[in-house]
């Protein structure tokens, strides 16, 4: 990879929180315009890794490099987990995006045509123009995610981090948000790193996957990483990567036997274990 296209390089990163080792020797790289899923179950270290990239937690070892253009403070786009947007907040969708542009500046914002134009352009890009004037707390989960993505992207960062943006979305909104992020990462040349506990909605879109288990990671293309041998070695015990009705399921050996038995017995009515 040439240095000019590098958006993020995580090199042998170790993080300990409260005496507990949360990340162990995690390494991977992202190039500009790449769409990468950060996959792992709850407690696997996804949020800590994102917070380490943002500089919120101290690295015990290793280092994290960003593209030169994004080394200034606040030049990483970020959509945190579970933001409670109160219906009582007097903020329209448009105001939230404008705060993404210059929310760190002191003093009230002065009306500016250039500012409005940039906000409009961003609202258009995420398909949020039609509800731009509504209170953000009254929007649906999918609409709020679009607004938060616009908030994160309006300053054109080279790197966009999203922490579980698909949690609490219905199937249709999930597919729409994934497609949107995939398109924006190409259009804006921004590397997108998105954490999720279920990789299935991301499989058609991912250029690369970082799979986390117990603080360790493997990274690469999805077809290289999501394999029985690779994930068994990551987990430290045997797991099976099973494909059921187009979905990928990672299961411990015993559960996988049950799934195989169920599929063989009645292929029409299989419930996948996530």
């Amino acid at each position, binding site marked *: 990879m040439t240095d000019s296209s590098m958006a993020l390089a995580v090199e042998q990163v170790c993080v300990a929180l409260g005496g507990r080792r949360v990340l162990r020797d995690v390494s991977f790289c992202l190039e500009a315009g790449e769409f990468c899923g950060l996959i792992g179950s709850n407690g696997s270290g996804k949020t800590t890794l994102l917070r380490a990239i943002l500089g919120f937690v101290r690295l015990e070892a290793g280092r994290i490099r960003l593209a030169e253009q994004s080394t200034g403070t606040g030049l990483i786009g*970020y959509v*945190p987990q579970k*933001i409670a947007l109160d219906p009582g907040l*007097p903020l*329209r969708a448009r105001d939230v995006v404008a705060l993404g542009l210059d*929310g*760190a500046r*002191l003093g*009230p914002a002065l009306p500016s045509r250039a500012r409005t134009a940039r906000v409009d352009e961003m609202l258009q890009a995420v398909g949020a123009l039609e509800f731009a004037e509504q209170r953000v707390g009254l929007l649906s*989960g999918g609409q709020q995610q679009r607004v938060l993505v616009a908030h994160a992207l309006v300053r054109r960062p080279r790197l966009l981090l999203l922490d579980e943006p698909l949690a609490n979305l219905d199937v249709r909104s999930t597919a729409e948000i994934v497609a949107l992020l995939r398109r924006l990462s190409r259009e804006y040349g921004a590397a997108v790193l998105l954490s999720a506990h279920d990789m299935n909605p991301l499989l058609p879109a991912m250029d690369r996957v970082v799979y986390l288990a117990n603080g360790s990671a493997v990274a690469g293309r999805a077809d290289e990483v999501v394999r029985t041998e690779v994930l068994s070695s990551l987990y430290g015990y045997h797991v099976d990567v099973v494909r059921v009705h187009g979905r990928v399921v990672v299961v411990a050996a015993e559960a996988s036997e049950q799934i195989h038995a169920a599929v063989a017995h009645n292929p029409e009515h299989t419930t996948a274990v996530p």
Partner: protein
Amino acid sequence: MSLVLSVPGFLASEPVRIALAVGGGAALVCAVVGCATVMRRQSFAGHALADVSSAGGSAAYLLAVNPLFGFLGMAAAAAGVMEWADIREARERDLLTGVVLGAGLGLAALLLYFDATVRSVSGAAVTVLFGSMFTIPASIVPLALAVAAVALAASAIIHRPLLVSSLSADLARAQGVRVRAVALTHALALALAVSLSAMTVGAILATALLIGPAAAALRLAKRPVSAAVLAALIGLGATWGGIVLAYESFYWTPGHGWPVSFFIVTLIFCAYLIAGWMAGRPGTRPAAHPSGCEGP
């Protein structure tokens, strides 16, 4: 009963002019700071600061110093303690606030007792707790207006970073906002606002001026600046309206007027009810989307 207010007579009275100036300043500051406080879900902290400031007010009577200094000192100290503890979790925060509130009120009880016994200041308790706008000394006006100006300037300066912080502290931090500095500045502006409010409507009722107009305005406004302007209008209207009614009440029960604080708080309560009724009418608020589905 007929309105017997004579405008020149009303404005010729010095206590009235002082009440209009100090009360107006307090209402303005409380409206602006109150909107941010409600948005940050710190109403309880605001209430606690006001109550705790009563200990400072009582101490000021004991030491015979300007009571505004007392309210200010105590509110700022309590705000400092509560922000310094830097507790993120809401439940823990409420517990700390409650503990500080209890300790402050206990101190106020002791100091008010000394006011009555040692210094024989009659009515100190009522003045500190429930306010007495027509007895505010003229010497306080310049200081009160300066405090109001500082609080308004601080609120204006942190306007945008505070809005981002109320969405999410992490979101703000990622954008380069110095979240703790902003929170501390807001806490100090809050301390200034409640001490002005305590000076006018009393420490116990100070929350009404802080939270009431802001809560009413937030029911109606869609944008942060319009919420602050609307809250300021409601606060000023209620405060000045209350002063007029209290002045008027001297004629209702000859010889002694009714407390100003009662009228102000009642007017604010009415404004809140009216705002709720207006916000509840169809068409004034965009309908919530119950499901996660959305249009193409």
